[in-house]
């Protein structure tokens, strides 16, 4: 009897005690840590691949890019982001925080990758695959700070998020815009030095860095360097203008084509959120909405932009749907809508006379955006779309930009030029658009060309901004930002503080230094 009692007590204790050392050791079930991973090219490149993806970029590329780059520039009309149309946005405005959050999130990714890969190198990892990956991170960081400098002017710079977070000191100041731009340039220079001459399509090369540097130099009015870097891209012979301009934005098969220098990478997939391109529904005409594709035309071409196209400019029909625009391949159909189905049976027609419920289109500006709208869905004859998702990349830097940068840098602030190579560059862009060549070129010519070439790509606001306040104000006040039925809308209250976005209110609450004057980043 007593023996049994003692056994009952001892046995469980023995069982428990024997495993105590290992029992509470529970490593991650995937077993993968930065300590035992990132030991070869494919592992490292799979990490930097994330920097190119819609996963971190989506809060910028969807809507914020449009509101800031195009609505504010007068290229887009919208009922939703009215405060960007009217310059009545505030630090609580939605896209301000979205863009800021996206940019600094991606910088965080790049920061931790640079740190991790440098540690790997120090521990003996192969520089041959780590250095190019680090260079990719530098490009991303440089590009993002270039965006930040243009969007907010003075801005904070963070390179070690872990140390900052662990320190608990969030009193991070704003630095002068010129220092942010300098930081961006230095990052791009590091990228240029270590990126490869060529890589798989879509991945960054030296020429991506050179191209972005050219853009930054131009922004800084450093015309000589802008011209030099653009020239290097042109002379590489690796890039050219694709003939299917609209396809660049609507065909996944044209992702990373010969014109692209840097694009946000998308695939047609449902998961995770951000893999697909979610620009589609914000641009698509309502009469293209189907069971497969959303289309709610949040953004439309502005009347002012429609007035900007030269007669015969093919970019108009490649970028804009308006009365008479057709796509015979698209045959959208809807349940229980026989008149609509009959109207669309032989191919999509953009018709402003047909009743809206029967397939007509009749919005505020009688036009819709064709760029980045992939179509009504695979079932209806277009590229695959799944709700909001398409597989199209979002192009941030392309060869046409390099050519126009080269022309403008050659002009170098002069009234006009007949420089043969500048004309050749400009006229290559115009030739694709079906327009006659210019025999001389002025700054206004290039400005016009940039507006129509990059419409709806989120770039034109920065072109206006870099003209300086006086000229920007003149440009904006001349624009008609209204609608057909609502009448013309001219801005009369554009003030100098509107040249840059306000810092998001939520950020200032958490970092009051942001509300104080900027300080130098470089001594």
């Amino acid at each position, binding site marked *: 009897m007593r023996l049994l*009692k003692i056994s*009952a*007590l001892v046995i*469980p204790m023995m*069982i*428990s005690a024997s495993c*105590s050392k290992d029992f*509470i*050791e*529970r490593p991650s*079930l995937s077993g993968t*840590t*930065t300590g035992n991973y990132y030991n070869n090219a494919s592992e490292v490149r799979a990490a930097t*691949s*994330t920097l190119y*993806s819609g*996963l971190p970029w989506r*809060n910028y590329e969807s809507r914020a890019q449009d509101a800031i780059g195009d609505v504010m520039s007068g290229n887009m009309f919208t009922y939703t982001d009215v405060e960007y149309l*009217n310059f*009545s946005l505030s630090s*609580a*405005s939605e896209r*301000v*925080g*979205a863009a800021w*959050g996206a940019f*600094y*999130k991606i910088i*965080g*990714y790049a920061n*931790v990758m640079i740190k*991790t890969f440098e540690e790997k190198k120090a521990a003996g990892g192969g520089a041959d695959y780590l250095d190019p990956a680090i260079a990719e991170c530098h490009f991303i960081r440089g590009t993002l700070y270039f965006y930040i400098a243009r969007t907010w002017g003075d801005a904070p710079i*963070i390179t070690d998020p872990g140390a*900052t*977070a*662990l320190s608990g000191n*969030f009193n991070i100041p704003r630095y002068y815009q010129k220092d942010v731009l300098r930081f961006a340039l230095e990052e791009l220079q590091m990228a240029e030095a270590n990126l490869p001459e060529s890589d798989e399509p*879509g991945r960054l090369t030296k020429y991506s860095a050179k191209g972005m540097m050219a853009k930054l130099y131009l922004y800084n009015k450093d015309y000589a360097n802008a011209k030099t870097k653009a020239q290097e891209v042109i002379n590489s012979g690796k890039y050219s203008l694709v003939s299917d301009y609209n396809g660049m934005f609507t065909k996944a098969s044209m992702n990373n084509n010969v014109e692209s220098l840097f694009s946000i990478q998308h695939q047609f*997939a*449902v*998961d*995770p*959120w*951000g*893999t697909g391109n979610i620009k589609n529904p914000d641009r698509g005409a309502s009469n293209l909405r189907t*069971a497969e594709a959303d289309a709610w035309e949040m953004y439309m071409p502005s009347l002012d932009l429609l007035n900007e196209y030269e007669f015969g400019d093919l970019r108009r029909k490649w970028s804009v749907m308006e009365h008479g625009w057709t796509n015979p391949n698209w045959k959208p159909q*809807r349940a*229980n809508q026989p008149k609509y189905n009959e109207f669309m049976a032989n191919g999509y027609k953009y018709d402003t006379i047909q009743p809206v419920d029967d397939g007509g289109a009749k919005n505020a500006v009688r036009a819709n955006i064709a760029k980045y709208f992939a179509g009504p869905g695979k079932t209806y004859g277009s590229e*695959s779309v799944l*709700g909001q998702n398409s597989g199209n990349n979002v192009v941030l830097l392309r060869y046409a930009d390099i050519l126009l940068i080269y022309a403008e840098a050659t002009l170098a602030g002069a009234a006009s030029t007949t420089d043969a190579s500048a004309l050749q560059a400009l006229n290559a862009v115009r030739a694709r658009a079906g327009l006659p060549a210019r025999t001389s070129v002025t700054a206004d010519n290039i400005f016009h060309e940039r507006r129509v070439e990059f419409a709806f790509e989120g770039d034109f606001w920065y072109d206006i901004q870099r003209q300086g306040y006086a000229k920007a104000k003149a440009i904006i006040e001349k624009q008609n930002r209204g*609608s057909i*039925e*609502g009448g013309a809308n001219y801005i009369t*209250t554009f003030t100098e503080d509107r040249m840059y976005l306000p810092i998001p*209110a*939520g950020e200032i*609450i*958490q*970092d009051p230094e942001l*509300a104080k004057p900027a300080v130098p980043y470089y001594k």
Partner: protein
Amino acid sequence: QQRTITGKVTDDRGEGLPGVSIVAKGANQGTATNADGNYSITVPNTATSLIFSFVGMTPKEITIGNQTKIDVKMTSEDQTLEEVVVVGYGTSKRADISSSITSVKAKDLKDMPVAGVDQMLQGKAAGVTVTSNSGQPGGGVSIKVRGVTSINSNDPLFVIDGVPFVNGNTSDNRGFDGLGGSNGQTGNSVMAMLNPNDIESIDVLKDASAQAIYGSQAANGVILITTKKGKQGEGKINYEMYYGVSEVANKLDLMDLRQFAQYQNEVLPIIGNPVSDEFKDLSVLGKGTDWQEAMFRHGNVQNHQLSFSGGKDKTSYYLSLNYYDNTGILLGSDFKRFSTRFSLDNQLKSWAKVGVSANATRSIQNVSLADAAESTIWWGAVTSPLTPVKNLDGTWGGGQMIGGVRYSNANLVGNSQFRGNTKTTNNVFGSLYAEFQILKDLSLRNELSYSLGQDNNIAFQKTGNVGGDTFRSKLIDSRSDSYYYSLTNYLNYNKYINKHGFQATVGHQAQSSYYQSISGTKVDLQANIFDLNTGSADQTTWGLSGGKGHWAMESYFARANYTYDDRYSVSASFRADGSSNFGPNNRWGYFPGVSVGWTVSNEKFMKEKLSSTYLKVRFGYGAVGNQNFPGGAPNPAYVGAVQFFSGPVGFGTSNMINGIPNPNLKWESVKTTNAGIDLGLFNGRIDATIDVYKKVTSDMIIFLTGPNLIGVGDQWDDLKAPLGNAGQMTNTGIDIGITSTNIKTNDLTWKTNLVFTKFKNTYDKAASAASALDGKVYYNNYLITHTTPGRPVGSFWGLVTDGLYRTQADLDNSLPQFGYIVDPTQTYLGDVRFKDINGDGKIDANDMTFIGSPLPDFTYGLTNNVNYKNFDFTLFIQGSQGAKAFNFLRWQLEGLNSAWSNQMTTVLDRYTDDNPNGSLPRFTNTNKNNTAMSDRYVEDASYLRIQNITLGYRVPRKVLNKIKGANFRIYGSIQNLKTFTKYSGYDPEIGAFNNSIKLMNVDAGHYPNPRTFTVGANVEF
């Protein structure tokens, strides 16, 4: 060698009690009273006493002696001070308790037709704050024991018959984001899986000296649930049922069609749009569609419980079956539960006892999207009354084109036919134990507890057409499995020598849990059959993802109690916990506790002077820890992890560094100091328990996030901020529980019970001077709570309104608001004016400040029970005072920035040139400041609610005897009859969004608690 004993058993009214179980102790003889309460039992001469037992009555043991006739009077189990309470790893007489524990008995819980155990506690236990997060059937509940303890989780530890539920009180209900929109309120009550009818008692361990024995898991308090077991005596059959009808208790005053037309006629010209000719003559317009009527309906609830219990010789048993069905008041929401419970106890030897218990539950919940944009309530509020539910041709309304303007496509009635979200949960849990009496005073107990869980969450959409929207069929099927086990061994030593009492416990525990999940998505389901196999063959439309995790903890614990002469008691406990959540250097945490008690009334001077008074003074101190990580934290958090993606990212196969490791992460610490008194007056006619406490939480485990510009965050796709130990939080409070027996005669009894809970929460220290806790909703930039040191957690943060700009002079004197100038598109007449809090001559982010706390000053519950002959009546009132709420729905409904969305009728009193004294600002779609986060949307959410009224009738014994019944009672009950509040939304009881303490009392289209009318019956054979 036998003799016969006879007698009569009566209740406290002198009436004979049929069916009383009578057992001769030490002999295998038993009988029961007859219909008149008389009995006759033949026992051997060796029998020394008789045991009388009856359900709901206190068992009695009577020494036989030489008597041949023994009459017995049985009383109800309601003598608080004589009760036995459940403490960790054992039981104890309440009189011996020196720490702070609150008990609730089963009879206090009956007639409350709620799905979950946690809801039963509302207003019933001092120091326990219970708030419904959602009125959805099966919806989530926030429970706080003595305030807000931690940033990450404030769920107390639930221990059911010794089985801890360590994964918290909330389970997810996701999937709506895959169908479009956001997930909204996803939290559900874990306790929904437990059948409340099986509960015997609930004990709440409130302070650290009581909690310390549970160590780290007890940081937020411990709720001990004891389920019913069989008792010795004749077997019993119980059947309980109730049926109820629910309705929405309160509706918003939204514009009808005529008012909407007037509104449109006034605001459309402002934005340059033509007015619809249909609206020119208001007199011919009707009410239009009442979307509130469309989205709310009468719900119903029914519950059926059948149980069998009894005991014979050395074995007792309990078996119950339960079916619960609740249709919600909001379209698309309902909840069903099937559960069964079994327990068996057996005295193997005089020194050995074994037992087993098992619970099995299956619940099926259909969720209506709530607390989000795109939710049913949100759309029901904003959809225009012009939009018909159905068009003339029978198709679903929505997307109407009127006068050149297209109205919203949304049609919540139609959508509910095409979209849904169903969650099926299966749980099995229970325990096995063996208890050995090694010596007279020494016992060993071995316990194995287990829990197996399985969830299946299906979000689906059918192919179809609603309004202008065409739906594509889609299925998101998510499944998860989990298991948990706990192996506990401990020795108990009890010794009584004369006036000295000594009790000790020493033990060891090992715990482990594991979970895994997988989710698949497909579109274009053939014939709308919701099976992944019917989906499209196009692989690019497929989604597949999954995850898994595990956790383990090892613990040692000890406790010692000493009492002297029923006057003095002291208790000490200690626990050491080692958790896999922490790195090698900080794996173990150590948690001591001590409490002392002094029964003053047992002193001689008290006995002589105030013999009718009972007084006891208690003091306790204890430390517990917290290992809970915020949601989304890497596991484990002390090494840098690599995260992989379920689908293509970037160039296809990608990964990312999941976070910034912190090897120095350690336990969160909670220290509590408690003092209390137990007071009885007039021979127990009035009982009071009063506790005051201070609870300090430090080294809180949080993501060390800051502004977005740092580049780290806590969302699924963020570079995770490092987990760190930072900050300090303090709760101070007072708990009061008073029971008064106002009248007690043979025919009439009236008792009143009052519980009062008051606590003050302060966030003392943050990670740094500039950092704070922030809560955001709807989109990332709309920050609504910002807790700075010195403020309560979850403080609302925004601008302070200062009336409107009503005159030109106002405009001339105006300060620039977020950079705006005076201009019709920016700051203008009728716009909101804000205060320059920091006095710098402009309004910007630096003028945002504390504008209210979501935590109440106090909560209370008042219960009155009246028994008059065979009738019983209960009135239960509960309330909350002083809490503020952020009415995000009103942000939408008084936003005055969209001409096509419906609004509250209050907008008809907005500022216009003709109405310069309007109470609301002007209509504008360009001035964003009018809808900035401000005290404009922060309201007083205090309320007093008539939570329950019940009238019951017990069938007389004469009738019962005819049907061989032992007990038969019928009753009617009203739940949430009336709520008195100034809050303008549907329900001032809002709770925490997904149980986050950073988003308490945020009403984003909150599912309100329904009003329910119930009838029920209890029958015992």
